[in-house]
């Protein structure tokens, strides 16, 4: 779906933000891109829908190269993006107006707009807020509106760029649940974050550092490798604890990735001894 060949990006101030990145993302994949601040992860994803253009190398989305300006519209139709701060992307007076905005611009018939908007709001669990002003919603609900607005445009792939970083624990879980359902509904999902606990349900975890891809594997393999701390990231406490039990040979088999899994593993083990 997205193919990146030898991509480098140099900002006007001379900073090399991406340094010969090669990456291939398949249709339907759930990829998490993690890395410390300044590692180049946001720069990388902005190349995937032609918000930034390569200094050298190329980016190909569904066979279209981002260097050809006439394809930008089609690329952005295929790959949408949700940003960190939902307040900066609201345009409507009410939630349903906001979700309808993109479709109205496409010139869609009003009956179809109504149907799409209702379906997307229902998918995001926001039906009861359709007539509410987005500014009166909580941070998590705002992010869900932003996601519903993007879903309404029916992209094949959605990039979530640090969408959880301004949210508290409960809203964060809520938004992650929605991101997981978006993936289950068949979309390609690319989620940028520095919280590794958000990678546990992904197919693939990519860690970036200093403009390069330094790790690219399943989340479990990367967690077990013990390498994330080399790149300024921290294992979630539960996974660090599970890894300790596994490294010491006390627990065997799959690495537990959630607190419920680890608790079950430990209970069974204690009962056996």
């Amino acid at each position: 779906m997205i193919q990146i060949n030898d991509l480098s990006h140099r900002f006007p101030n001379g900073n090399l933000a991406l340094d010969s990145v090669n990456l291939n993302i398949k249709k339907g994949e759930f990829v998490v891109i993690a890395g410390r601040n300044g590692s180049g992860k946001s720069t990388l994803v902005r190349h995937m829908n032609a918000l930034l253009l390569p200094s050298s190398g190329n980016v190909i989305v569904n066979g279209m190269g981002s260097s050809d300006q006439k394809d930008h519209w089609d690329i952005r139709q295929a790959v949408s993006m949700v940003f960190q701060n939902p307040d900066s992307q609201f345009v409507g007076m009410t939630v349903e107006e906001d979700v309808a905005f993109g479709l109205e611009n496409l010139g869609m018939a009003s009956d179809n707009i109504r149907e799409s908007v209702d379906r997307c709001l229902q998918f995001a669990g926001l039906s009861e807020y359709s007539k509410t002003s987005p500014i009166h919603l909580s941070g998590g609900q705002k992010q869900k509106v932003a996601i519903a607005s993007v879903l309404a445009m029916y992209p094949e792939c959605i990039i979530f760029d640090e969408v959880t970083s301004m949210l508290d624990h409960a809203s964060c879980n809520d938004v992650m649940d929605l991101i997981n359902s978006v993936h289950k509904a068949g979309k390609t999902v690319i989620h940028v974050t520095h919280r590794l606990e958000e990678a546990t349900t992904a197919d693939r975890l990519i860690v970036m550092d200093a403009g390069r891809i330094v790790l690219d594997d399943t989340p479990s393999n990367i967690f077990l490798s013990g390498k994330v701390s080399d790149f300024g990231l921290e294992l979630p406490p539960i996974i660090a604890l599970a890894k300790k039990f596994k490294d010491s040979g006390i627990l065997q088999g799959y690495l537990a990735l959630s607190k419920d899994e680890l608790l079950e593993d430990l209970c069974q083990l204690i009962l056996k001894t």
Partner: protein
Amino acid sequence: MSIDIKNLIFSYNRSTSLEKHALNDVSLSIKKGDFVLISGEVGSGKSTLIKHMNGLLKPCSGSVEVDGIPTHKKDIRSKVGMLFQFPQKQLFGKTVDEDISFGPANFGIKGNQLKKQVHEAMDLMFLDESIASVSPFDLSGGQMRLVAMAGVLASKPDYLILDEPASGLDAKNRKILFSILKKLNSKGISIIVVSHQISDVLPLVDRLFLIDSGKIVFKGSPDEYLRSTNLYLPDIPWIMKELHDRGFDVKFDIFDIDEAFYEVSSLLNPQKVDEQ
């Protein structure tokens, strides 16, 4: 010597159609020398609450007193220092020295005494004297935070309030920050940390206040918190408590990964762990 809040009620946009109740009958007391954590979800009223403690907001009803003085008197601001989230945004001086001096100078401190207080504050924050003449905006993000904190400490507050001080800091810098707070607390300054994350700070504090929808829903020691049922627990103590509740013989006031590992391992194989 304490901050005393009695039956505090506060609404934003009072008597308009946008009226929003933020605090509902909050009473609490923080003694000088206490280290407390105020926690709750985003929008629960934590920031509104602390803004009452140095008079940035005035109660709609109820009372807020610092060392017996109601907060609408100006002089309590030198007693209660406040550090907002992203404190680097509080910086404005041409030089680090100018920035840190601003607070105490405004409280009427001059000359050598001012120099001494600025110097002491920089010292507390591990800031080298050589950066005093540098523009704070040329410093790294981490150093800017330290300068902002020094700026608050230079006024020698008795109470220091920090709103989400660890947000955006990586693990190493969080540890440094918390060791600084411990040091300040050992010098007798009350530390009031506001955070929606409990696990980092809880092991350090004397008391915890949980706030939900503008009401205090829990007050007590970290131990009382861990023993309470039906409150959200961080993952490590959650696992330990679940094991404990299922009848296994483990301690549950554990936040540390290594300690949790040791506790469970010794249950599984007491001899082996003892030998080590």
